[in-house]
């Protein structure tokens, strides 16, 4: 199956090649009674060298999607393609290559690194696992470069996580992800647990590294302003579905989905409601139609690289 039929691949590939794409990915979690659909048939792609933001509130399924794309949890159905190779049929060696080229940065710095290991060894670990260094000197060089870029001193590298602040550990997590020069970094709210001034600093350093090395960055965030500031493209996620996708400029100049608009106004509101409507936003939507209760709108292509799922737009 080519990704073409979902309008993801060929027509956009004139400028960038698709690096990682997911096609019809669904994830269902078993819970006490029945199950929860965290990701509901999502297809989208990350292209070489771009910064793309996946925006959604907590509970929208964005972290789950990010972990599926990083091959940390398997999807219930659908598949993830890395340079057109499906994750589900990768050999051990292919998967190893994937792990070397795609890095995941988690949200919580607490326990993101082994508490019994020194920071230096944790940062050097992926280099050792992938056999990327020939000597201790070379390893030291790479670890030091990547750490100092994020403001970690040699002294801090000689400590264990419990002797450092959350911000310092998160810097180490990022330095570790970048140490092996990946082609794609998937960052799940990398700064949301830190204080605002640290947040801005770390994000700046991450973007500097991006423009210097040219890796693609998939930024998962609830913060639309952050997405606006850093990304070229934005996907807005709601209850396991992407409701709007487009370039950052277009989304901000002309938001088409009512949910996107309310996000922009800073009304962060998605609550549990009892509406059994097809569109999950029905209960809070100011523009709802009768047909929204019965069927969920398909992806409507507005123009090139611009999609929205709303009957109002149709």
């Amino acid at each position: 199956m080519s990704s073409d039929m979902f309008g993801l691949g060929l027509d956009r590939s004139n400028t960038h090649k698709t690096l990682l794409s997911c096609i019809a990915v669904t994830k269902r979690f078993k819970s006490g009674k029945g199950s929860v659909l965290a990701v509901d048939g999502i297809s989208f792609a990350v292209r070489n060298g771009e910064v793309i933001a996946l925006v959604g509130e907590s509970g929208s399924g964005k972290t789950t999607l990010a972990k599926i794309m990083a091959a940390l949890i398997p999807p219930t159905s659908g598949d993830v393609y890395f340079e057109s190779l499906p994750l589900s049929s990768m050999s051990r060696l292919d998967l190893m290559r994937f792990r070397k080229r795609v890095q995941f940065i988690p949200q919580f710095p607490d326990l993101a690194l082994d508490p019994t290991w020194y920071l230096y060894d944790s940062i050097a670990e992926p280099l050792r696992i992938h056999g990327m260094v020939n000597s201790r000197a070379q390893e030291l060089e790479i670890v030091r470069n990547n750490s100092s870029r994020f403001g970690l001193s040699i002294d801090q590298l000689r400590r264990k996580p419990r002797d450092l602040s959350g911000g310092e550990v998160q810097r180490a997590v990022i330095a570790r992800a970048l140490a092996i020069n990946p082609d794609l970094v998937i960052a799940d709210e990398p700064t949301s647990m830190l204080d605002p001034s640290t947040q801005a600093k770390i994000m700046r350093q991450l973007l500097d590294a991006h423009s210097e090395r040219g890796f693609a960055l998939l930024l998962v965030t609830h913060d639309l302003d952050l997405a606006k500031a850093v990304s070229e493209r934005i996907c807005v996620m709601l209850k396991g579905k992407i409701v709007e996708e487009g370039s950052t400029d277009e989304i901000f100049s002309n938001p088409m989905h009512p949910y996107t608009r309310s996000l922009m106004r800073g009304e962060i509101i998605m609550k549990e409601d009892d509406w059994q409507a097809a569109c999950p936003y029905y209960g809070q939507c100011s523009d709802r139609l009768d047909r929204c209760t019965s069927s969920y709108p398909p992806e409507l292509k507005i123009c090139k690289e611009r999609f929205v799922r709303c009957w109002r737009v149709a």
Partner: protein
Amino acid sequence: MRFGYSPSKVELLGIALVSAVVTMALFSYLPDGLFGAPSKSPYSPPSLQNLLGTNDIGEDVFSVLLRGSRVSLTIGFLGAAVSTLIGTLIGIIAGSSRGILDDLLGSLTDLFLVVPALPLMIVLAAYLGPSFINVVAVIGLLWWPTTARLVRARARQVTESLFVEGLIGIGARKLYIIFRHILPNVLGIVFARFVLAVSSSILLEAGLSFIGLGDPQNPSWGTMLHFAMTRGALLYGAWWTFIPPGFCISLTSLGFILIGMGIEHRISSGTKSVGGFA
């Protein structure tokens, strides 16, 4: 790095008791007869020649006690080492696996937890015959379930923590994660369990030797009690032959329990367990 390790009062008491026994064991390497020559007469009460009197065959009880400390401590350490090793391996594999392997090892652990250990040890030791190695083997092979259960719980907790997911993300293999990351994180509990297991295995060895299943070549404190029981010292009233070894067993076992509890308390002030019985 932190060097500021200051033992609590409880641990200090434990360390003092254990050091005393280790000193006894070291003294046993001094030449025979230094602390009291064997007297010709059996069951002679404590005197200046024989500080703790003599036993049924006229040996100096104090000298026998010193040699016994060596045997009890060695078996205590070896038995604890074997059982802790087995318990740690089973616990860590069960705790970091899912599905059949975990279920299987979990049920095995539960099974051994319910079966009374001492009677089974008696049967096994009776079949294998009394020897040093057999006593160590019997204790080591049957005293691991508590360790396995605690290590499993801790390993499960570590396996589910965020950094293990991160390790999968950077391409680490399962065995690598188990031995390089999960193992260091359970070592604290393993160490506490080991110290408590030393206490248990000293008591178990004493129990087995008391029944007559100890190594006759290397009489331990338990062996001394066995002979006091079977050769009439008890009914003769020769209290000096059995009070000292029992006293030593109790204080040594208490010493290791105190240290082990101190370490356990340090790791988590939550659950406490006592690893000993007689």
